[in-house]
């Protein structure tokens, strides 16, 4: 069953259009993460779903019913805010109970649900305190608990971990994943941190400048990004991009002449590519294979992380690239390396940022026909 569906949702603040026609379906029980750089409209989209913001156009359906005109209070959703937005004058218990009191839940029910949520989030001993007496992590739990007790149709979480320090963030991330396993509700989670997206999501929605770049399971986005933007955004350290000019090489793929003069052959469909068209070649730091010959790289500096070595390099054309090697590699700045262009998986992106895909394994006649024309 579909918990939420958006059809052509767009939003403009005055003359500034921030969301351009979003179509999206979220299934019941699904954990969907909106990810994108700041200003991409992900929080606005969440607020539109919540009802805190009215869409300029488009339709929002919750469980099949159009809710465009239903106020936020009546949509039956719960939201965890980035700033937590706990009511500062109420105790933790009152904070948790406020939503239930508003929906006229019987007193015993409130007690039971607050107790259950407090137990689940391990904040039982904090129930009498005021928010200002809590640490960041505790406030975070209370904010989640406030959403939890409502048993909402959908949990909306707006960058809930961004105010925590790095260590706590990792811990809360794991806890959130565990919590989600137990309660199994539909969740929509907004973040700019691709690690959070990768670790938590069933499905990631990558947003860029108010448009959906790609929707897919975390590993699908990692392995098979549809655009340069997604390829660069998902994965850490981010994908390396080298600029060059394309020369179609028939069925073998495309030869890309990099600015430094090196030619890389990328096994993709050359269909529609003109000779000399600017393209960019991408490869993931972890997938880079080094060899004795190939693309020459100069080591700029080295980060030894213990289990992994990050080598920051520069190509002949002064482009930067990062190479991650498993283990502890004894290497010094100034040394020269070579990237193996055959064994390293390469992705090719056109000028518009779209990925140029490999030919389907079995060519359909019509397509191969056009191939020959090209």
């Amino acid at each position: 069953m579909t918990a939420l569906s958006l059809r052509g949702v767009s939003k403009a603040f005055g003359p500034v259009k921030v969301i351009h026609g979003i179509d999206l379906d979220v299934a019941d029980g699904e954990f969907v993460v909106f990810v994108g750089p700041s200003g991409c409209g992900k929080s606005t989209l969440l607020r539109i779903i919540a009802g805190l913001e009215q869409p300029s156009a488009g339709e929002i359906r919750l469980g099949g019913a159009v809710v465009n005109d239903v106020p936020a209070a009546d949509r039956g959703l719960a939201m965890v805010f980035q700033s937590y937005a706990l009511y500062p004058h109420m105790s933790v218990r009152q904070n948790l109970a406020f939503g239930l009191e508003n929906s006229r839940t019987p007193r015993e029910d409130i007690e039971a649900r607050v107790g259950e949520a407090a137990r689940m989030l391990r904040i039982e001993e904090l129930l009498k305190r005021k928010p200002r007496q809590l640490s960041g992590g505790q406030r975070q739990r209370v904010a989640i608990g406030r959403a939890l007790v409502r048993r909402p149709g959908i949990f909306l979480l707006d960058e809930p971990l961004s105010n925590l320090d790095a260590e706590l963030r990792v811990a809360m991330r794991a806890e959130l994943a565990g919590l989600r396993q137990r309660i199994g509700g539909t969740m929509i989670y907004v973040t700019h941190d691709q690690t959070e997206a990768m670790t938590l999501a069933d499905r990631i929605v990558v947003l860029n400048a108010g448009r959906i770049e790609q929707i897919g399971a975390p590993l699908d986005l990692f392995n098979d990004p549809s655009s340069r933007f997604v390829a660069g955004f998902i994965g850490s350290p981010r994908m390396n991009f080298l600029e060059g000019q394309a020369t179609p090489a028939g069925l073998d793929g495309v030869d890309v002449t990099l600015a430094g003069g090196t030619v890389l052959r990328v096994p993709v469909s050359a269909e529609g590519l003109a000779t000399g068209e600017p393209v960019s070649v991408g490869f993931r730091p972890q997938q880079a294979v080094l060899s004795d010959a190939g693309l020459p790289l100069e080591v700029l500096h080295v980060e030894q992380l213990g289990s992994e070595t990050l080598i920051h390099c520069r190509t002949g054309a002064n482009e930067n690239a990062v190479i991650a090697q498993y283990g502890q590699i004894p290497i010094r700045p100034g040394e020269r390396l070579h990237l193996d262009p055959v064994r390293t998986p390469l992705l090719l992106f056109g000028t518009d940022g779209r990925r140029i895909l490999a030919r389907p394994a079995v060519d359909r006649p019509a397509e191969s026909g056009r191939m020959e024309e090209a």
Partner: protein
Amino acid sequence: MNGVGAFLTRRRGGRGWHFTDVLAFAWLAAGLFLMFGPAVWLTLSSFKTPAALVEFPPTLLPLDTRTATVEGHDKPLPLYAVTAEDGGERVLAQVRRIGTVAQMVDPQAPGEIVKVPIDQRAPLREMRFATENYREPFQQFDFLTFLRNSVFVTVVATIITLLVNSMAAFALSKYQFRGRGAVLAIILATLMVPLSVIMVPLYVVVNQLNLMNTLWGVILPTVATPTGVFLLRQYMLTIPDELIEAARMDHASEWKIYWRIILPLSLPALAVLAIFSVMWRWNDFLWPLIVLSRKELYTLQIGLSAFSGELNVQWHYVLAMTVVSMIPVVVIFAFLQRFITSGIATTGFK
């Protein structure tokens, strides 16, 4: 006592008196004298007898001439210390004074009149609190009624002021609607219109509503104050919108948001407005004077003015009742001032 001593000799930095310490204490002492001096003098003077009040040079403490009842005289006579020509000192009661000579009598020997030049006698004085200044207005005049009226007007007007102004401020600070700025500008513009300008139209309105000679006629025209709306609005602007959004997500109605979120978080500003409102309504004179003409409806301030006749002002009563009328304001201020300094609206955030 130790604490007070330590407090009063507190200095900046380490040991020794820096000149800035001296300046600071001098400044504070001057400020204390300026602020507190009149209030203390007023309070002390309110315990003086009418005679002591008009005395020149004035005294700080309520001193009163001692009197004695002397046989053959109906009224108690004032006692004086008289220095005789031989240097001896006697206590005599003054019967009357004629020019520079006082006719005096020894209380022990009432028959014999002694004539004493007035520069040879000094009044015998003692400190006595003339509590009758307080007692008599309550007995002779209807001061309790005045007090009750004043309390009613002040309390009811303040409650309505807080409610009405906070609602307006909530709408003007937290809702987006067309004309919001214009509404606020109009409200603030009324600050520039003094009471004397709108007095006549206001009188007409109150009269048409049959509110003349009722306490509601005093209360209602005063409850919507531009100062209050502006003060509360500015404070509410600092309450994060996310709290309201969180409440909306928590299925709270707009009324609930106002009542359970906005009002508690605006307490510091409400306290300030409450103090202002109490002072305004308590000290109001002109408008109640216009509306109220029946004596049993008089507020304290109008009641006080009754002590000032055209030719004769009963200063001892005026002073005493002024002290009484100051008490509520002082109490309110002492009670609410802790709210003024503390803002708690943003403590629930990261």
